[in-house]
């Protein structure tokens, strides 16, 4: 207890006397903690804990039967007639758009006749409950009606309402027969009888999934074996929810990378805590000597300063908790956009601030603060009492070992180069991150030498250019080398990460734009207006392509069909295209560098495919390898003819000839069409003719330019969250600069007062502090750009490659970087305004005579 009292008097009370500086440090930690917490919570809500409506409404089942392109419905019949007490529930699953509101909802087709049977166990108890939700008549009376649907209560309909639904490219009208409750975390969905759904989606004779409830004995695996034996080769039986787990695995790298990005703010915060505690140690050097002379052990001194940092960390974490919860709402939105665009249809779940999240936030706040304070705290504990009391305050830079640190930086840099060449570990670019961390550490160690060299070189020049204030500012920064180095280190780390991510995203954007120029050779593109996403591919009515191909001015129509499949426990896209359509390409799209025509010729009507670059990295397959795909009822083996560059999705894609696909999956409806216009035809006239031909169908027609613009818009939206994370790190750093400048003013108040005695005007004192802020910003920008460039190479060629498998061509996004760096620089100078004002307000009479 006495020690706590002493801790309060000697450590906490001084912090309270500098409320602005203390608040800035706490706020910097709070922001760091908040960002980590927000990304953790948002990640859980947007990707980790997602269960699509298709799953939440799946009921209590054990196994699911699936097949690429759908399961023949006689399989359900065969399963139901097996001599086992199993419940068989075939389903049609898709998404529809409510025509009036444009809201996208899951569509589930259930065997309502079986549901309605008195003896049948209810697969969807919620639907049965709809009888009590406003339907005046028995819900099962209308099972046979082809226009009957049941809707979740949150959709806002009541029994008897008419509802217009957009399915693929057609709008159909239905009657709401009942409303079921969906308030328990389940999303609203449209439920219809399976026969109605098959008809509406043109999936006659097929179902999308069959859910099975099996007895507990003899166990799931045995049941899987038994059922597999009676199922066609291409049909798979697996535990229910396996698809969700596959998606989760696919999203692991995305979450992992985003989480690590969120730690940047914490790293910056750690620099600032280190600086704060270092300042604290220097300021209290005489006090440390006195307390040591009065009987305090080294351990007490060490604990006192680590404790001081822990106080900052605890206060920061407590503020960061609600702040993080608040930020998570925005983060979920941004992450959900990325997940939808690149991975899988999933509405974000609710954000849950669990006790574990609270503990995580507190541990991060206190842990990072205490860890970053350890070095200066240890230094304080080693102070000799006699020396401290005799010499009082000692300058920082006495203990800076520029040359030694520079050599350490070189060694760390070499270690980073070695780490960047190591392969991924379990699909994660662990060594890539190690390389990035080592580079940040190398930069921190190189900072004193860099700052010393730059300030020495610039001092005279600055004096000539900006007057004596600039010269004084430069000398002051050089004199407090350690403090300056830490501050520049903090800000440059934030700038470096911003630069690195900016270069990576800019390079990626440029690569995608070049790739699109090659991949989108058609003049017009047509797709159904139905609900589309990375894993949803509504289809265009069969026959439309043939109709359009006959129109005058249309040179060719290329049909593309995409299915979502499961390959080796991961989701993937299986696509087919009319490979006989001539496509003009300037460069090869393939790893082999072979001309496109040569590669595609291998695919025509043969069991050969090309796979996308992400596919090869996810499944470790290369050209020449064979892959076995489950297609409909059969399994077929395909040779990989080549690997193509693809930036449309991270899921991994397989492309085959349309004729080959139709052999296995006979549904001829294409997912979208690429329309080539004759060189002598007028695009607008042909477009009008196409729109007329497609009248009555809900389709979206894009020009080549529109489609590219849309793709880039989605791209930019996808990376919005990374920019947001970088911005927070920079804000943390700039706040740190403000706090540190304030400390600098307080520590140098005597010197500033003296300048007033020597004839300095208040404006000159203000200019001095602002020039210091500007110099800090300049040094940080220079160091940050250099480090950022090297980090961007690691991100592009190591982390991205090992995480997602994309080949990105390096590109300097000059405008964006210049804009961002200017904003940071201006913010840094502005951060000096308040400290400068404090400096101006100092009373020289008081401060000059202080000792």
């Amino acid at each position, binding site marked *: 207890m006495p020690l706590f009292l002493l801790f309060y008097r000697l450590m906490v009370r001084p912090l309270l006397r500098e409320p602005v500086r203390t608040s800035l440090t706490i706020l910097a930690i709070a922001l760091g903690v908040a960002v980590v917490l927000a990304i953790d919570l948002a990640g859980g809500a947007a990707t980790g804990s997602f269960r699509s409506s298709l799953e939440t409404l799946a009921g209590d089942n054990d196994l699911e039967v699936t097949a690429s392109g759908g399961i023949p419905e006689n399989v359900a019949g065969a399963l139901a007639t097996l001599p086992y007490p199993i419940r068989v529930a075939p389903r049609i699953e898709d998404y529809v758009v409510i025509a009036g509101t444009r809201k996208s909802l899951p569509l589930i087709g259930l065997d309502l006749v079986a549901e309605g049977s008195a003896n049948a166990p209810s697969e969807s108890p919620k639907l049965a409950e709809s009888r009590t939700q406003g339907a005046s008549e028995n819900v099962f009376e209308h099972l046979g009606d082809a226009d009957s649907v049941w809707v979740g209560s949150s959709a806002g309909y009541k029994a008897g309402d008419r509802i217009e639904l957009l399915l693929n490219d057609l709008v159909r009208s239905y009657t709401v027969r009942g409303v079921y409750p969906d308030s328990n975390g389940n999303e609203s969905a449209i439920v219809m009888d399976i026969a109605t759904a098959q008809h509406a989606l043109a999936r006659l004779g097929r179902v999308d999934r069959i859910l099975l409830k099996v007895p507990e004995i003899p166990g799931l695996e045995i049941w899987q074996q038994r059922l597999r034996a009676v199922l066609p080769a291409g049909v798979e039986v697996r535990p229910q929810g396996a698809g969700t787990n596959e998606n989760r695995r696919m999203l692991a790298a995305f979450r992992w990378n985003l989480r690590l990005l969120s730690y940047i703010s914490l790293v910056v915060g750690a620099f600032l805590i280190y600086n704060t505690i270092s300042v604290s140690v220097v300021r209290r050097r005489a006090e440390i000597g006195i307390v040591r002379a009065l009987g305090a052990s080294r351990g007490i001194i060490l604990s006192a300063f680590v404790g001081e940092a822990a106080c900052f960390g605890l206060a920061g974490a407590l503020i960061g908790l609600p702040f993080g919860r608040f930020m998570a709402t925005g983060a979920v939105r941004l992450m959900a956009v990325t997940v939808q665009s690149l991975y899988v249809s999933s509405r974000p779940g609710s954000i849950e601030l669990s006790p574990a999240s609270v503990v995580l936030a507190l541990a991060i706040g206190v842990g990072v603060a205490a860890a970053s304070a350890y070095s200066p705290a240890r230094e304080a504990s080693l102070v000799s009492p006699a020396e401290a009391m005799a010499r009082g305050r000692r300058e920082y830079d006495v203990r800076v070992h520029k040359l030694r640190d520079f050599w350490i930086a070189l060694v760390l840099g070499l270690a980073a180069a070695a780490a960047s060449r190591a392969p991924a570990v379990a699909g994660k670019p662990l060594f890539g991150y190690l390389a990035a961390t080592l580079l940040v550490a190398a930069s921190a160690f190189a900072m004193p030498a860099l700052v010393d060299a730059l300030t020495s070189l610039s001092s005279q020049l600055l004096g000539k250019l900006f007057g004596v204030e600039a010269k004084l500012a430069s000398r002051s920064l050089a004199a407090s080398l350690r403090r300056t180095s830490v501050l520049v280190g903090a800000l440059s780390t934030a700038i470096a990460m911003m630069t690195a991510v900016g270069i990576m995203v800019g390079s990626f954007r440029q690569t995608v734009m070049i790739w699109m120029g090659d991949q989108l050779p058609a003049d017009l593109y047509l797709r159904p207006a139905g609900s589309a996403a990375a894993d949803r591919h509504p289809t265009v009515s069969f026959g439309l392509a043939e109709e359009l191909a006959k129109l005058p001015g249309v040179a060719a129509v290329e049909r593309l069909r995409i299915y979502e499949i499961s390959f080796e426990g991961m989701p993937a896209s299986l696509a087919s295209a009319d490979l006989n359509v001539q496509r003009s390409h300037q460069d090869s799209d393939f790893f082999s560098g072979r001309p496109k025509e040569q590669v595609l010729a291998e695919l025509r009507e043969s069991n050969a495919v090309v796979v996308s670059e992400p596919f090869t990295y996810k499944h470790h397959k290369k050209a020449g390898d064979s892959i076995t795909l489950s297609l409909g009822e059969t399994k077929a083996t395909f040779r990989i003819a080549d690997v193509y560059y693809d930036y449309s999705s991270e899921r991994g894609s397989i492309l085959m000839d349309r004729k080959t696909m139709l052999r296995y999956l006979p549904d001829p409806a294409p997912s979208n069409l690429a329309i080539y216009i004759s060189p002598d035809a007028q695009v607008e006239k042909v477009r009008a003719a196409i729109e007329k031909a497609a009248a009555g169908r809900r389709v979206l027609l894009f020009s080549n330019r529109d489609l590219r613009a849309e793709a880039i818009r989605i791209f930019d939206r996808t990376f919005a969250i990374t920019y947001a994370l970088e911005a927070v790190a920079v804000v943390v750093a700039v706040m740190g600069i403000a706090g540190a400048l304030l400390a600098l003013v307080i520590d140098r108040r005597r010197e500033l007062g003296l300048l007033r005695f020597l004839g300095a*005007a208040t404006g000159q004192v203000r200019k001095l502090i602002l020039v210091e802020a500007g110099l800090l910003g300049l040094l940080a920008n220079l160091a940050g750009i250099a480090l950022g460039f090297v980090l961007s190479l690691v991100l592009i060629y190591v982390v991205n490659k090992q995480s997602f498998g994309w080949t990105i061509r390096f590109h300097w996004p000059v405008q964006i970087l210049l804009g961002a760096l200017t904003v940071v620089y201006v913010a840094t100078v502005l951060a000096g305004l308040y400290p400068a004002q404090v400096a101006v307000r100092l009373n020289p009479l008081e401060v000059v005579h202080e000792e």
Partner: protein
Amino acid sequence: MPILSLQNVSKDYLTDGQPVHALNGLTLNVERGEFVALVGRSGCGKSTLLNLAGAMDFPTSGQVLLDGVSTSSLNDSGLTQLRRAKVGFVFQSFQLLHTLTVFENVELPLLLAGKPRAREAARERLAWVELDGLGDRLPHQLSGGQMQRVAIARALIHSPNILLADEPTGNLDNTTGNVILELLQRLTREQDTATIMATHSLEAASLASTVVRLRDGTIEEITRR
């Protein structure tokens, strides 16, 4: 006309909400070439008088005329200009900037005032205080006496009309202190500057041409030699 004239000057401070009368109706005139020693116990008003004389503070009542200019009539900017032109300060603890060389310390007031040829002037003032050749050293490479000489050179760089020294020998041993006092005496005479020195030391005061004894914010006695 006296270079410094304090006319019925009073200065009150508030300390913990209680008014403290630091100076109480004090009148004093100082001429060019005069070496004035302010003596008296701690708290008698010596430093307050120096601050008012140096245009660092305003009197609560009365007038401080520096070369005929009333400090009360000026704003902060005007006071700064007045100090730049007419006042030099020497402190007990030297107050050199440790990040600057001797030359840079000495020329600082001229640079702050935006005056040209600062280095030439610094070289000359260092010669006055017999520190030729040490201009490129840093303060921590000098002895206490040398540091105070640098401070004096700095105070004289802009040829002020009045030099204010607050306990200039307080941090020095007797021998070094005497050297500094003789230097101040000589420069006051040679440069025709008025020097006002606050001191506790009777030995230091004995070198002054005028000794002003303060007590409770008023002049108890003025001795002119």
